[in-house]
């Protein structure tokens, strides 16, 4: 992005990507294959096969698999790689089909389960008032 001249006027969301977003998906826009849509918090993780194939992957696909050494939500992935969320949807689906990414679509019955909600409540209650308080981060 450093080689392009800056666009005129203020840009609220940062510089425009060098490549039109849906060029990398060959024009596909969303969720074509699997039927069920993937919510933004869907977790994705690289597979061993994906990490082994990393050197052969190009551009966005490489970046996605590399970033997914640790579990990520689709939203985090899109934000960190500065990709349009819907582009990440399409590419994640491709990489899943190729066995290079595992996609965990959350089951809403589980996330709405009373025991899960109680754990979230207990976890939140443990958060101290002020940011200045030391917390265990690891």
């Amino acid at each position, binding site marked *: 992005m450093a080689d392009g001249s800056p666009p005129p006027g203020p840009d609220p*969301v940062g510089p425009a990507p060098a490549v039109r977003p849906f060029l990398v998906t060959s024009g596909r826009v969303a969720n074509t294959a699997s039927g069920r849509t993937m919510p933004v*918090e869907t977790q994705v993780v690289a597979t061993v096969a994906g990490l082994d194939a990393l050197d052969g992957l190009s551009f966005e696909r490489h970046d996605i698999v590399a970033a997914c050494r640790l579990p990520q939500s689709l939203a985090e992935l899109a934000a960190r790689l500065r990709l349009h969320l*819907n582009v990440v949807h399409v590419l994640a689906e491709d990489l899943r089909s190729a066995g290079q990414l*595992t996609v965990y679509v959350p089951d809403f019955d589980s996330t709405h389960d009373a025991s899960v909600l109680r754990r979230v409540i207990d976890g939140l209650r443990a958060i101290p008032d002020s940011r200045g308080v030391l917390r265990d981060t690891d």
Partner: protein
Amino acid sequence: MASEPSPTPEGYSVTPTEPLVHGSAAHTPVRPPLPVKMVIAGGFGVGKTTTVGAISEIEPLTTEAAITEVAAGVDDLTHTPRKTTTTVAMDFGCITIDPTLKLYLFGTPGQDRFGFMWDDIVEGAVGGLVIVDTRRLDDCYAAVDYFEHKGIPFAVAINAFDGAVEHTLDEVRWALDVTDGVPLVVFDARERGSVRDALLVVLELALARTEG
């Protein structure tokens, strides 16, 4: 924190394509947490990102997403809602509850004369927090209507800018026309403890509904 790796983590409807264990010892076993989603809604500039940032363990991230937009229909002679797709920026953050559970907070885009169809972002959320600036109550009607229509548990949180609230809670409740079942709280979007308590009100409501 390493737990016994399991090929089928609880709470997922999709079986992984292979067990979540990386073969080499160089990688820790990775098992994704169950993601629980809450939505932070409200008009433009009302403090959604501040709210997320006050409690998120990461700096709020911004991503762009395409959502369906329904035109207001003021110049539509057919009275058929016109739907178009618009790209909006969405801020979000997260809180790791434990290695198996993670709370995501998504700030939905503000809106003015358009009604956004937030389904793409909101579907599956356990609850919503509608942030209100009492100087601009109009800005939150769309969010209140949306959660009511969808049956998603939500609370209304009045952001007390500089400690000032221009109307009493009763006045706000009357103006928003929300039932007594919808909690109304005053909070400060900049204060972590205050944001935490507002989120807890929503979660308690969601829990009560699950149990009731």
